[in-house]
């Protein structure tokens, strides 16, 4: 088994780090959009773009990591990326169907 570089630890947080940035952006966009009474379609489009960008980033990282499972840490990193992808779609996907503002 090859030695683990300390920087590899960052791969462990990459997936849910991206999930977190999606949360912050979705939360901020939603709050600002509703406060300034943007059209619901514009808010939904913004949320969809944030979601798509994060899903694309996660897919790219998964694609990159698939060829680098040389040790346990990188294998775990790959599975956290997959978990983060599922979590991102599951937690933010329904936002696109719900009434954005009251």
């Amino acid at each position, binding site marked *: 088994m090859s030695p683990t570089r300390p920087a590899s630890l960052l791969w462990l947080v990459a997936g849910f780090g991206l999930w977190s940035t999606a949360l912050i952006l979705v939360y901020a966009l939603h709050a600002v959009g509703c406060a300034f009474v943007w059209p619901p379609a514009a808010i939904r489009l913004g949320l969809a773009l944030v979601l798509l960008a994060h899903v694309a980033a996660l897919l790219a990282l998964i694609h990159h990591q698939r060829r680098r499972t040389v040790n346990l840490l990188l294998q775990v990193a790959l599975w956290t990326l997959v978990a983060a992808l599922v979590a991102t779609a*599951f937690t933010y996907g*329904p936002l696109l*169907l*719900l*009434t954005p503002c*009251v």
Partner: protein
Amino acid sequence: MFFGSLVLFALVMVALALTFLCPNWARRVSPAQWIIGGGLVLPALVLPPLVAWALVAGERLLPLPGQGVTRIEVVAEQFGWQFGYPDQGGATTVNLLHLPAGEPVDLHITSTDVIHSFWVPQLAGKLDAIPGKTNVLRLQADRTGTFYGQCAEFCGIGHAFMRFEVEVREPDDFLRVVDGLAAEP
């Protein structure tokens, strides 16, 4: 919902008991099977329906304007609650909220001093009462009875005693009581 959670709780407890009482049975299940079964398959079966149900229920309870829902004004103040019924002649009550059973109502919640939080645990989630802002909570009490509410945001020395009662009556009774309050001098 309650019985569903009871079934899941019983399943987990039975599995736990079997690991103690029949260790051979537990050994036949590999660690990977435990992790995949209990950590992935079970939540994958349970959580999506719960989320879908919660989202649909939440949409149905959104206080969208123009639906002819009874409006009640809630004003929080250190350390009590005032409830106004503009649709019923402007009656007001203090620390006592009247609600009709089986009908949605919109509570327009605000505060005159600091941030409070309106909370009736048996009827709905918490919603902050913020000075200068009105938050709207739509709730529906499904049965008659007396429920208890409490300020859920620390608001000063009397916070713990900032309670109120909720009297839920049949819709006709609700109208009779609140109209009667409005008629009082």
